[in-house]
């Protein structure tokens, strides 16, 4: 028999290492402006960080709780529009019509500000709504699906369908949403006297702080008891039910937290991009989010984040040329298929495996036979 602390150590070490990696990532993104003094580049990087944030949110619901939400872009888009609406109402009259009506409403012969626009005159309300609306929508949808024990592919298709519906409606209701063009010509975000110019360090830091807080917060959730239960539900939903847990409540929680983070990311995206558009809540974006998450590693929050930053970053670098972009998407499709086939846990899973192999080598761990078996068993399983 082995002394119990010998077994606790590998896990505890792993957890410490994980936390160290997450913290190092946060420090790294804050340090970027020290080395780069180009506002244009910083704006770009801020954009990638935002995309990393929404991929991380998906990892929480998909990688941890097993809810493949193909409509993740909906939460993102709702956040984005919430921010755009308030910033539109804050513009100086040159971009708004008489009576403070947004310009596109004037062009579409809308006479008075619609009721659901009115509260957005307050930025505080908008920031609240940008998180709360996606959260509430996800909670309602989750309640609807999970209370009815809808699982697996049905969840994927239903969330996708809801996204399609929302996208159709936003484009169709041009009078209230700006239709295809989205909401453009926005004011700058101002919170407590602080101005957030899209092309400035302040915006970059805003994004970096939000990402760090969400990332560490999400990490804490995955390490909580609820996080453990999310993973248990992902593995064996039925079994969890027979321990007396209300599985639907847990799934609703996972999905709505994920949606709230995506909503926050959407708001930041509007600040960084200086407009909101229906492409922020369309199917291709949702697909991209899934790809980022899968490539980086769906079961790792940090992996998903970095996956998005790297993939979106490469795409951004190539986007100068139209044919390049098309080729890139082709390559992405191929990589995605390959990852799904051979690397279900993405690059993070690959690193994890390599790391465990390294840790095992010197004199093997105190755990003796167990971890050694553990590795081979794990591998065998991953390949099935």
């Amino acid at each position: 028999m082995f002394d119990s602390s010998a077994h606790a150590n590998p896990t505890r070490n792993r957890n410490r290492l994980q936390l160290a990696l997450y913290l190092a990532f946060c420090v790294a993104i804050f340090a970027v402006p020290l080395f780069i003094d180009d506002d244009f580049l910083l704006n770009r990087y801020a954009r990638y960080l935002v995309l990393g944030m929404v991929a991380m949110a998906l990892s929480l619901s998909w990688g941890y709780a097993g809810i493949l939400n193909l409509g993740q872009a909906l939460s993102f888009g709702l956040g984005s529009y919430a921010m755009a609406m308030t910033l539109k109402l804050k513009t100086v009259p040159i971009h708004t019509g008489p009576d403070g009506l947004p310009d596109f409403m004037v062009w579409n012969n809308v006479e008075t500000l619609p009721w659901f626009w009115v509260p957005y005159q307050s930025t505080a309300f908008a920031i609240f709504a940008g998180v709360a609306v996606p959260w509430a929508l996800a909670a309602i949808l989750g309640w609807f699906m999970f209370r009815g024990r809808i699982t697996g592919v049905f969840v994927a298709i239903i969330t996708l369908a809801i996204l399609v519906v929302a996208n159709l409606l936003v484009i169709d209701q041009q009078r209230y949403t700006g239709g295809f063009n989205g909401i453009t010509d926005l004011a700058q975000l101002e919170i407590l006297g602080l101005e957030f110019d899209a092309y400035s360090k302040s915006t970059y830091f805003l994004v970096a702080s939000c990402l760090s807080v969400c990332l560490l917060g999400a990490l804490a959730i995955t390490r909580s008891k609820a996080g453990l239960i999310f993973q248990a539900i992902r593995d064996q939903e039925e079994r969890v039910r027979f321990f007396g847990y209300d599985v639907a409540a847990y799934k609703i929680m996972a999905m709505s937290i994920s949606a709230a983070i995506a909503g926050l990311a959407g708001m930041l995206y509007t600040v960084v991009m200086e407009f909101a558009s229906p492409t922020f809540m369309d199917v291709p974006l949702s697909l991209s989010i899934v790809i980022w998450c899968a490539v980086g590693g769906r079961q790792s929050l940090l992996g998903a984040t970095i996956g998005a930053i790297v993939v979106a970053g490469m795409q951004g670098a190539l986007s100068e040329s139209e044919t390049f972009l098309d080729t890139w998407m082709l390559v992405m499709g191929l990589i995605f298929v390959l990852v799904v086939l051979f690397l279900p846990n993405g690059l993070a899973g690959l690193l994890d495996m390599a790391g465990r192999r390294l840790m095992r080598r010197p004199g093997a761990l105190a755990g003796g036979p167990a971890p050694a078996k553990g590795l081979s068993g794990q591998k065998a399983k991953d390949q099935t």
Partner: protein
Amino acid sequence: MTEHLHIEGLGVEFNGFKAVNDLNLSVAQGELRCLIGPNGAGKTTTLDLICGKTRPMHGSIRYRGREIARLPEFQIARAGIGRKFQVPSVFRQLTVRENLEVAHCKHISVYTNILRSGRSAESDGLEKLAAFVDLSDYFEAPASVLSHGQTQWLEIALLLAQDSELILLDEPAAGMTHQETQKTADICNRLKGKHTIIVVEHDMGFVRQIAQVVSVMHQGTLLMEGTVEEISRDQRVREVYLGSTLGI
């Protein structure tokens, strides 16, 4: 002995097929009851009915005097009934400790659990449980590395972590080697008296090692009840099993 579980007139049909039909069964506190019967006799379905996986169409299930027949699964679980399924179902990607942690469900609300650490203060207790089913060496290993037998034992430990008073075991020794079967019998014997246990099993050798009272099911109803000797002498039981490999 006080009555722990009382089943009366229980019945369920699938597309007109009576899988369980007018079943009466009564189990005392702390008793270990074996439930045997040929394939398709309705043993698994009976356990499904008790733990709420399947809704009964007729009859009543009283647990400590309380009617539980139509409660949702999670309420039945919280009332103190734990179930091991025929197909081993542990959380393969979680470690043994984490598996036990999930099963150890004092607090079930998502709102409190999101604020609680996934590594509870009762880690010691969980380690004792792992030791009880001889899984100490694997405490921090993912459940996916466990052998078939070890997975079954982990499942039993999960029911103990859950602190169920009534434990339903569906074929705990299926597919095990002789030695593993011995060990499972040993575990069951050590649980006698502390928990009320219903074991569904095919392997008569195993049943002999653990049984107090055996109930025989056939075509959804109770055929007879008695000690191992009594039932293996019974003519009806022999007929039911005729041609099967049970070797009564």
